[in-house]
């Protein structure tokens, strides 16, 4: 069963269309990363996903329940971390845990406290007085404590230094290892997300331009560098180029139709073929045209 189903989601603000007929699914046990530039519609999508906003058309289903209509019931099995954690600044971590516990069917208060201890986060300091990294850990802890079947994380590492970022991902991975939670996250940290996500979606101008396993994505994208003119240039179209740039006396193309078993352009002395990171693929697809 899919824990998240988005069907034909359309969101409009006045005359501007923020999301246009977006559809995708996140299966049980999957880790889905939604990528996109700022303003591509990620926040609107996350809000519709959590039942905070009503779409103009389409719907979002969380664990089989419609997010807008059955929000409270659906969220009993969902852990949420908002962009820039927003717990009430006056509450301490312990008060937050005590407040949230009766709302869910299960609550692992001991695990929550243990996690805080592990990171040296004091339980009796007001949320607003914690550092950014500490706040991110508390928010993640609050999301993990109800032992949810689904985690929705909206840019969980935004504004965190590398140490804090790594700590957040470690906690997430630990939870994945322990309980096989399904995860939906958005992020600008493509490098960090690359290893964890199994599937990626790329949102551009309100449309989902890509929805694919990362493994297959990396298998078919290559950067091909060659001299202009010549055999490589002639066969370029077969490879479905996505971005082509001239670098002095060479041409560099990011192609999306590479097949390792049947390379259209055999590598040699004059042709360089290299694989791409997720970030490089993303840039090629949605970056500014050069």
């Amino acid at each position: 069963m899919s824990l998240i189903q988005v069907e034909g989601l359309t969101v409009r603000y006045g005359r501007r269309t923020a999301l246009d007929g977006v559809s995708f699914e996140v299966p049980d046990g999957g880790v889905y990363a939604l990528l996109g530039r700022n303003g591509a519609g990620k926040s609107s999508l996350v809000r519709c996903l959590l039942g905070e906003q009503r779409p103009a058309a389409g719907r979002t289903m969380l664990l089989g329940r419609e997010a807008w209509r059955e929000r409270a019931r659906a969220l009993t099995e969902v852990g949420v971390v908002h962009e820039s954690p927003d717990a009430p600044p006056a509450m301490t971590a312990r008060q937050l845990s005590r407040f949230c516990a009766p709302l869910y069917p299960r609550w692992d208060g001991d695990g929550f406290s243990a996690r805080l201890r592990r990171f040296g986060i004091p339980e009796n300091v007001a949320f607003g007085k914690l550092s950014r990294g500490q706040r991110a850990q508390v928010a993640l802890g609050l999301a993990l404590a109800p032992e949810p079947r689904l985690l929705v994380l909206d840019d969980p590492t935004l504004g965190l230094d590398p140490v804090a970022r790594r700590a957040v991902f470690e906690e997430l991975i630990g939870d994945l290892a322990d309980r096989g939670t399904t995860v939906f996250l958005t992020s600008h940290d493509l490098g960090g997300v690359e290893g964890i996500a199994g599937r990626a979606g790329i949102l551009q101008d309100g449309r989902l331009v890509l929805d694919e396993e990362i493994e297959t994505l990396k298998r078919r994208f290559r950067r091909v560098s060659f001299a202009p003119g010549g055999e490589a240039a002639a066969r370029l179209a077969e490879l479905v180029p996505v971005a082509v740039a001239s670098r002095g006396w060479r041409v560099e193309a990011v192609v999306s139709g590479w097949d390792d078993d049947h390379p259209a352009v055999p590598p040699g002395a004059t042709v360089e073929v290299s694989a791409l990171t997720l970030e490089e693929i993303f840039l090629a697809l949605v970056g500014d045209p050069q």
Partner: protein
Amino acid sequence: MRAFLALLRREIAERRLLLAGAALAGLVPLVLPWFPGPAGLSPADLRGGAALGLAAVAVSLLALGLGSTVLAADLSEGRLGFYFARPLPGWAIWAAKMLGALLLTAGSGALILLPSVLAGGTFEVSVFWAGSALLGIPVLLVVSHAVSVMIRSRSLWLALDVGALGLIGGVLWVSCRVLWREGAQMLVVWSGFGFAACLLVAAAAAGLVQVVRGRTDLRRGHRLLSLTLWALLGGMTLGHLAFVAWVFRVAPTDLISLLSVEPAPAGGWIALQAPARWRGGYTPVFLFNVDSGRFLRLPTQGEGYWWSFPDFSADGRRAVWLERLESRTYRVLALDLSGPEAEMRGTGVYFSESPSSLELSPDGRRLAALTGNRLTVDDLVTGRLLYSGEMPGERGPGERLLFLGPHRLRLFASVWTDEPGVPNVWRLTTLDLEIPQRRLVPVSRIELPRQSGICLLSPEGRWAVLHEWSSRDFQLADLESGQAIPLRTSSDPLALLADGRVLLLHREGRRRLVGLLGPDGAETLRVQIPGSRLQVGGFVAPGQDLLVVSTTDRETPGDDRDWTSWLVDLRTGSRRLIGRGMVQATGFPFPRGSLPAFHRILLRRGGELFDADPTNGHLRRVLTLKSPARTTD
């Protein structure tokens, strides 16, 4: 439910410092009496007053402050997302925050009052104010939340809000003004409470809709809030307007008990005034035709107006009514009672203040009035002012205007001086105004070195009975000659007949008798009427031979069903029973000064009004009111 309780607990715990502060503030009134200050207040009074004042201020500020921030601040600063990302139902978020604010506000008020209550402070608070405060706190809370959302959203919907507020406020103001002017003040008070209750419901519902459907979107929330709020308040306003329209569509059958009834001297019309059912003390005045059942409600006369009934002409075909306009001006309305329907028209005559005396000529065409010191005579048919002049001398409550024919007006004034150091004098002056010549002719001036008293006038303005209070002496005065002769009687004069005879009321123990006294002091008649209290209704026209009275046996009569009415023949001394019930009673002989003559006898009993035939005593029911519970008279 668990979510709601968890949130409510949190809301209160977060602001527990407020309660601590309130507890501290509650100690201030306790220690206040120990500080030097103005004397004259007992410690208990000081504590009570200070605690109440402090509580009132604190509660108002808290209601405003908490109401405008518990939800709206979190919403506008993007902090509500935390709650909406948890399994918390939208209604629980709204309810817990609002209820939390309410408990904090009310609790703070209670904490401020508690020490003073325990220390024995005096708290004199009427139910009205206590009820208003209890209702006002939640109203303040939900309204300040609504206003806070409207302002924080910075959207154009605010213009709609302001416009709707102006419209609804204006409509309600006007309708309440109309109610107030027509004398239905209780309805305005009830309406005020009704508005407050509706506002509470409307603003609460609007806030709920805003949170449940607007969620974390401030602009959308504002739109939903405004639509809900103004739709509900608009409905309430329409309901109020419908109610006001219903109030004024009152008919005589809607009256619950008769306050007073007076038939015209002739014809089928009577004036009646009574409270109307379900209209909160609204007491309209009607012209009612006992033969045809047609009626006309007369417009407001304002407050403090002496004459509560129209002035009828002698033939009962015309009447005059003063309508109170906005700016304390009175408009004279002429009522035409000659046709099957009563018709009302303006005469073009206005008074800038309430006239102290008013008299309609017997043919109904002329109106004389004393307004302050100014005497005016108007022709109601043409609207012309026939005379206007300042009257010399002082004015007093015992004035009387009387038309002696179409061209002559008698002005009778009874004034007493009551200043220290000046010998007390009771002065009665009679002046005649020759209308066509616009000339004032002094007729007589009687000065009595007495304190003060009351006068009864004869119908044609020739004689007066003077009754001095302290000595309880009676004198019969001839107003044309200015001579006064003492009357030897220990009884109360009731009326003066045209020929100078005096109608007396004798009290012998619990017996009541009616008697006639001649100018020579000789009694010509005594008739006992069964009963221990007596009220006189008037003469049965024509002439002054038949008198209607009502008596009761009870010390404290409940209502008109405890009275019995009689017809007394002053020629023969015989009396005849009319029936159980009360006849139209003047009760208070002034300012008429003389008993009127009616051509029909109206008997009221319970919620029914009867027309009694003087010849055979046959009762015809002319009006049935909504039967009231027994009220005290």
